[in-house]
């Protein structure tokens, strides 16, 4: 085996593998919003309430996939296709059926960029707290990371006012600076560019692209085909909880345009 083949093989190191990944919500959960509703329903139809099979909503339907080192995968699909649910399953927030193997790789996922943990505390204190949740493995570096994040955000004296008093743009500045601080083996970014003003967006785009470059693999959810084209080398197109396309971005985007305009929310009640 020559060096080119060696390099290609090491570059294709498996980061994550999903086999028969299914995700189901039980619609019964939404039937009773209060204890009173539940008691009333139990009184009306006790056997039916207790024994009836509840409606199931199949969000992800038997997915099989592999994510390799170097993959920058854009996930496309209309609203309700299952993009965010898939990302949350991979990030370990949701418990899916089937197997998701990570082979010991660190996964970092970001789903919101205008969020503080304690709105009463200052931006700096919130950033310090978020570091503990986003980067627990870099505990010894937190002090340096915090300084770098604060400098990058350019919030200066605003860093020491309560987070609840920040505008959406300021919140996005701080969060984006924080989430783009360190690369990961698998980075999941779910519509994370929203919120920042256009001047900061240019700056953060460069930083996020650098982060993507240094991360093992990236899953990128966006409705912006320009961003997908700019960042990704592979696209998954999700429809009704299934990956119906896995291939080059150009073809995936073409399919997105062709199918997207005729496709509403998937009807997946069983």
């Amino acid at each position, binding site marked *: 085996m020559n060096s080119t083949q060696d390099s290609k093989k090491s570059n294709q190191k498996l980061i994550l593998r999903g086999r028969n990944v299914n995700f189901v919500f039980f619609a019964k959960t939404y039937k009773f919003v209060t204890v009173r509703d539940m008691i009333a329903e139990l009184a009306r139809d006790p056997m039916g309430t207790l024994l009836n099979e509840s409606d199931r909503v199949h969000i992800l339907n038997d997915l099989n996939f592999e994510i390799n080192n170097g993959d920058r995968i854009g996930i496309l699909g209309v609203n309700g296709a299952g993009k965010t649910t898939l990302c949350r399953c991979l990030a*370990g927030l*949701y*418990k899916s059926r089937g197997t998701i193997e990570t082979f010991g790789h660190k996964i*970092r996922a*970001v*789903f919101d960029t205008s969020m503080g*943990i304690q709105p009463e505390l200052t931006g700096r204190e919130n950033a310090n707290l978020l570091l*503990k*949740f*986003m980067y627990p493995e870099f505990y010894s570096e937190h002090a340096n990371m915090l300084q770098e994040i604060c400098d990058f955000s350019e919030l200066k004296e605003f860093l020491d006012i309560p987070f609840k008093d920040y505008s959406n743009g300021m919140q996005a500045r701080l969060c984006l600076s924080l989430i783009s601080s360190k690369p990961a083996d698998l980075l999941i970014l779910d519509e994370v560019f929203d919120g920042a003003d256009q001047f900061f967006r240019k700056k953060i785009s460069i930083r996020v692209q650098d982060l993507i470059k240094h991360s093992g693999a990236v899953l990128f959810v966006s409705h912006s085909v320009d961003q997908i084209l700019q960042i990704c080398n592979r696209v998954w197109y999700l429809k009704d909880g299934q990956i119906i396309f896995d291939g080059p971005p150009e073809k995936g985007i073409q399919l997105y345009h062709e199918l997207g305009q005729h496709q509403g929310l998937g009807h997946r009640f069983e």
Partner: protein
Amino acid sequence: MTLEELKIYWLQTEGLTLANLKSRYRGTWTGFIWTILNPLIMFGAQSFAFNYILKIQIHNYSLFLLSGLLPWLFLNQTIEMGMGTLQASGRLLKSFPIHPFVLICAVVIENFFNFFVAFVVTILPSMFLLEIPILYILLAPLAFFSLFIGTITLTSLAAIANVFYRDLRFILRFILSISFFFTPIFYDISIVPVKLKWIVSFNVFYYMIVPFRQLLHEQNLWSFATAIVEVFFIDIGLIGLTFYYWKRKRNELYSRL
């Protein structure tokens, strides 16, 4: 769960607890003083009513009441406060990799800190005044630990269920209010009629309070050991129930947040 994960959860809980305390008491000592004064005022009012008006005949009634009332207030206030934690942190839980139990533990530890300070300020001096043997003070961490574990599990169960049922908060608050009268806190279990004792035997709150009472008021080592063993098994059962409920409802919980 690996040791490394446990360490991470602990660091996150510690950070969040300190942030909660800082956020609550920033720039004001009155808030903190109130958390100490609140149980003391409750104790003063109840002690006056039950001791001097109703004339309950229990030796050293003040210590008897205090040893039951402080753990009860901690349990009650923590469940009430922690019940809305997950509901209020929906966006946060869906945005960042934060384990819901970290949020609940932070609330319980924060309240536990207040309870511990109130305990040290009120009970410890009376223990020295009454010359309670040092052994009983050294055994107190066992009672604290069992109460802490029980409170975390009960708060977790309430917090998970509260995500699904919007009116649970009001119902549970009502149940907690009436539970005060069905739990032997201001009266002794010996005055409960035999035919009604089953009510107490199904009351998990009571089992968590008994070790404090045996240690501080009764000062009976054998009864204390029995009470600790009982509450240990209850805690194990509650831990199992909490994890079962969490595992069963996890995905629906995130979808409802």
